[in-house]
């Protein structure tokens, strides 16, 4: 299946050609070239998926394939960075997700970005991003993943900063890059630590349950009180947390909404932010077999993040911010599912239900990518018309924008977990898995799910119902090339829940049959419906005074949530006050004044010393002669008499 290489090459080709040709391309031709290449990529991905999933299983287990693997750089005899393609259920699934969403975004952007300055640049960057993201998911080893991990970071940076004349966009892009880079540093440290003991980067070797001797050298080794392996996997998780915006590294994601909305849909909702989830899933056997405590830690961090983000999302007024926090919250769901999961055992070609969490996580990743992209694209269509991100500038849009309205509603229902939309199925599996792990965690997650339903419908009612705002120009439905992707994604959202996902993706590779746990399902649906009802009551008419009263009632909590619990301020404090003021500036001062001062001091002393001796150098030959004679005589005396 070497042709899968073209999945990477085509978007890269798009990036290079559009990037080099630049502004020489007239009109929308850059967009058409990019979209066409991406279309081919998507077709190839679908074909790959079809071919891969229709392959025979061995002992009921799907086998991983590496059609391509080159040694790119050799460090030592056993450590080398390979560049290759690894096809296994999750990577193929990711390829489908990425190429689908990317294609939709490409098409959508033809309308959305029409007439923007830097249209070519935009498509070039999209190509770069798609290339890097595909490279990331097909990575055969952890270092290849790191490489593409960095590349997606850069493409995200470039795309967030697309409107580079806007100071907010610039600082947002900077923030995104630096925060993720900070996390990547830990990722790199984790890789170094892991590879030092296992002597390999290769996923195939790391994740093979049969080949666990490579971890033997790490056994019993501790560093600062923790087992080295735990350190390694925890560090790697920090890297994942940075990309996936887990608390407290989430701060870049809401700001990243300064980028063009389709970019938010592609990168900051559907694909790049789930890279962390993907990484944990990729290394799941390592986490599960060697450092289960880290895996559980991941679950708690993720659950906390999900809760935090859901609360914050309830009070935001910028629609893209609401969606951003919702994304953080949903990624929290996925990681919780991974964290609570166990490795399934294969029995008779079927996987036992211990592996539920893993499957649920991947399933949710899949469905979430679709409906969250849909939400963002819908939001983009609205922003495109309204020219504002603020809820207060919207209201009653359902009449002007019927298609957007319907598709948005579908997505909202999906994320709220209402059957038969896809979100219901995946979220339900996650809740079930959580209840299996720790019931109290299940309760928390259910509460978060309720919050999700509430804030999504708060958003929905505020945009499409409520009081219409005043606009100078008539509002209109988005053009066809924008509504097309919306409709497509909405259709996917409607049907995706019925995909027997466990048959394709599971922790062991064996088929997993999904059962609906009716208790959990019914509870969660009921709670979601109640939340929606509350949202309807509060926001549908736009006249209810309850929200304001609630805000008053919760007072400090409301204000804190509105300011995202001041995490940004804390960061601001740490970076500016501590790092810049207390580290960098003193260091620079130290350099200029102490180290340089010592040097200049040496120079000064030399000068002074010379001046002190200068009287001897009268410039008069006679004095010199006197000194010479005296000196010669003294030397003579010494040599004679001593």
């Amino acid at each position, binding site marked *: 299946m070497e042709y899968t290489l073209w999945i990477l090459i085509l978007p890269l080709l798009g990036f290079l050609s559009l990037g080099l040709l630049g502004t020489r391309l007239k009109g929308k031709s850059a967009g058409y070239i990019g979209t066409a290449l991406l279309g081919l990529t998507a077709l190839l991905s679908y074909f790959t998926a079809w071919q891969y999933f229709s392959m025979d299983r061995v002992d009921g287990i799907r086998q991983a394939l590496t059609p391509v693997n080159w040694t790119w750089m050799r460090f030592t005899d056993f450590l080398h960075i390979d560049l290759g393609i690894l096809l296994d259920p999750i990577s193929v699934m990711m390829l489908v997700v990425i190429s689908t969403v990317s294609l939709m975004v490409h098409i959508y952007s033809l309308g959305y970005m029409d007439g923007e300055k830097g249209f070519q640049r935009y498509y070039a960057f999209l190509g770069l991003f798609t290339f890097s993201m595909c490279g990331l998911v097909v990575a055969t080893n952890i270092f290849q993943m790191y490489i593409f991990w960095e590349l997606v970071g850069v493409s995200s940076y470039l795309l967030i900063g697309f409107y580079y004349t806007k100071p907010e966009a610039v600082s947002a892009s900077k923030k995104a890059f630096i925060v993720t880079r900070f996390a990547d540093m830990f990722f790199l440290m984790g890789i170094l630590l892991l590879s030092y003991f296992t002597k390999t980067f290769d996923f195939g070797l790391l994740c093979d349950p049969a080949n666990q001797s490579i971890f033997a050298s790490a056994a019993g080794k501790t560093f600062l009180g923790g087992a080295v392996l735990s350190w390694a996997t925890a560090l790697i998780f920090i890297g994942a947390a940075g990309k996936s915006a887990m608390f407290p590294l989430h701060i870049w994601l809401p700001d990243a909404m300064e980028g063009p909305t389709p970019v938010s849909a592609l990168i900051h909702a559907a694909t790049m932010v789930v890279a962390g989830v993907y990484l944990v899933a990729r290394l799941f056997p390592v986490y599960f077999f060697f450092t289960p405590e880290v895996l559980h830690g991941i679950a708690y961090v993720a659950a906390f993040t999900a809760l935090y983000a859901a609360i914050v999302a309830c009070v935001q007024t910028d629609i893209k911010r609401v969606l951003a926090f919702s994304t953080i919250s949903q990624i929290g769901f996925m990681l919780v599912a991974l964290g609570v999961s166990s490795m399934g055992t294969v029995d008779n070609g079927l996987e036992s239900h211990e592996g539920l969490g893993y499957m649920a996580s991947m399933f949710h990743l899949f469905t979430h990518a679709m409906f969250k992209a849909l939400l963002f694209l819908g939001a983009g269509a609205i922003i495109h018309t309204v020219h504002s991100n603020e809820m207060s500038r919207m209201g009653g849009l359902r009449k002007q924008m019927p298609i957007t309205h319907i598709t948005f509603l579908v997505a909202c229902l999906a994320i709220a977990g209402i059957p038969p939309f896809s979100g219901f199925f995946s979220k339900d599996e996650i809740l079930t898995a959580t209840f299996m792990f720790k019931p109290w965690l299940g309760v928390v997650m259910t509460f978060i799910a309720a919050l999700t339903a509430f804030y999504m419908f708060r958003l929905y009612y505020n945009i499409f119902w409520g009081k219409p705002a005043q606009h100078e120009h008539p509002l209109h439905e988005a053009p066809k090339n924008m509504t097309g992707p919306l409709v497509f994604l909405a259709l996917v959202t409607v049907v995706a829940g019925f995909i027997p996902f466990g048959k394709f993706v599971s922790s062991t590779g064996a088929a997993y049959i999904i059962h609906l746990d009716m208790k959990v399902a019914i509870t969660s649906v009921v709670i979601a419906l109640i939340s929606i009802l509350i949202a309807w009551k509060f926001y549908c008419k736009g006249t209810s005074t309850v929200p304001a009263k609630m805000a008053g009632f919760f007072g400090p909590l409301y204000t804190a949530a509105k300011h995202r619990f001041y995490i940004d301020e804390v960061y601001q404090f740490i970076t500016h006050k501590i790092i810049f003021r207390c580290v960098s500036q003193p260091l620079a001062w130290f350099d200029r004044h102490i180290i340089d001062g010592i040097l200049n001091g040496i120079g000064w002393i030399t000068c002074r010393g010379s001046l002190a001796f200068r009287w001897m150098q009268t410039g008069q030959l*006679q*004095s010199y002669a*006197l000194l010479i*004679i*005296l000196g010669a*005589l003294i030397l*003579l*005396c010494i040599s*004679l008499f001593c």
Partner: protein
Amino acid sequence: MQDAILLKFVFYFLAAVIAVFSVMAVTTRRILRAATYLLFVLFATAGLYFFLNYSFLGAVQLMVYAGGVIILYIFSILLTSTDKESKSPMFSLRRWLALLASIGGICLVSFLLLTNVWPTVYEPSTAEVPMKLIGKTLMGTEKGQFLLPFEVMSVLLLACMVGGILIARKRG
């Protein structure tokens, strides 16, 4: 024997002249006098050369120094009309130190000279150097002959002439 006494007397006379006038040459405050004393010293030196039977050397000394150099001095002294040196504290530190150095130096060197054991010379000679030999040595190119230094000397003198003219000439 008479001869020897006479010769000794001549030597002591020359030595006294040299010692006394060289000291006076450097201590007198009038420069013209210093030049005159120098002349005496040089004459006495020429006398020493004759005494050593280096007549040619003595002649050169007389011609070059007494005839040439001293004239130069006198002319320059008169030209610059700085007959008298300005007054200075007679007993400045430098003067004392110089005095110390000089006297110390004389003592030290004399001590060395008088205590040193000189190599014995097997065939001492006080014979006059024949003029022919001097001429050949000066013009020869073999070992122990001095054509090259002689030529270098001549070039040096030429350079000095040119330099002297260039330096001293009035700038227009």
